[in-house]
């Protein structure tokens, strides 16, 4: 069922629930990491966004993103590097609502494109972003083992 949630900026008091949602999804609780994200992306940081979707049972999902400028010559674009929805609240349009909310902030910041980076085997989240109209970007992610 699609019940519209309130999407708003994160508050310090939301952090426990964000950590819990992330732990449900990834199997690993990372309170120190999320405290750092709150510090750097919470509040009114310029071009940085940390939003949550709140329902009657508390925080149901979160999204974190920022505007990135001129990485390897790429014009400024919105970058989503974290999105999560409580597993039992999925298929209700919360992820789409969160993504649209952060995209709206990117638009207001003057950018016209949004990007993200995902593991190839992250099928569920890949399918979600695809369903929201995202296509392959003209970049190739690279990595190597550091000796």
């Amino acid at each position, binding site marked *: 069922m699609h019940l519209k949630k309130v999407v708003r900026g994160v508050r310090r008091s939301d952090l426990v629930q964000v950590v819990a949602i992330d732990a449900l999804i990834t199997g690993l609780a990372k309170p120190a990491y999320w405290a750092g994200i709150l510090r750097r992306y919470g509040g009114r940081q310029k071009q940085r966004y940390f939003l949550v979707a709140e329902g009657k049972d508390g925080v149901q999902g979160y999204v974190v993103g920022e505007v990135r400028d001129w990485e390897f010559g790429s014009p400024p674009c919105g970058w989503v590097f974290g999105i999560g929805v409580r597993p039992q609240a999925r298929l209700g349009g919360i992820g789409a609502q969160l993504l649209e909310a952060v995209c709206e902030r990117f638009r207001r910041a003057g950018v016209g494109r949004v990007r993200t980076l995902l593991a190839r085997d992250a099928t569920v989240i890949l399918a979600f972003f695809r*369903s929201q109209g995202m296509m*392959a970007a003209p970049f190739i992610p690279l990595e190597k083992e550091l000796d």
Partner: protein
Amino acid sequence: MRLQQNTLLALYSALEFASRPERQLSAAEIAARYRASPHHLAKVLRKLRRAGLLQAARGVGGGYRFTGNAKRVTLMDVVELFEKVGAARPGPRAGRREEEKALDEVLAEVDQIAKATFRSITLDTMLKLIARRARRGRGA
């Protein structure tokens, strides 16, 4: 990346059926749209039916209708019915040169990206993409 003709016809057909699941279509109708032989397309549709994506429709005209879940069925689900993406390349495994092994590694990377792409796109997402392209075309 190239897909075999059967695979392409299966994908076109699955999208045709999924776009209006209540409608029944015959092999001849789809064959005409995609300039394929009806006999050839009938074989493709039988395979989609065996995979549970289509159901043979009774009554006048016959044909098939879509019975899959367009939000769940991915392009990979259809592609895999007809061909193996990234199948091991034939040739001897032993005594291979480093050049051959290194090139295999690069080709495997290409295959993995293709598979991830097919797995991430559902028929429903494809239908949205088609609609967006049509809107852009009308706006141009």
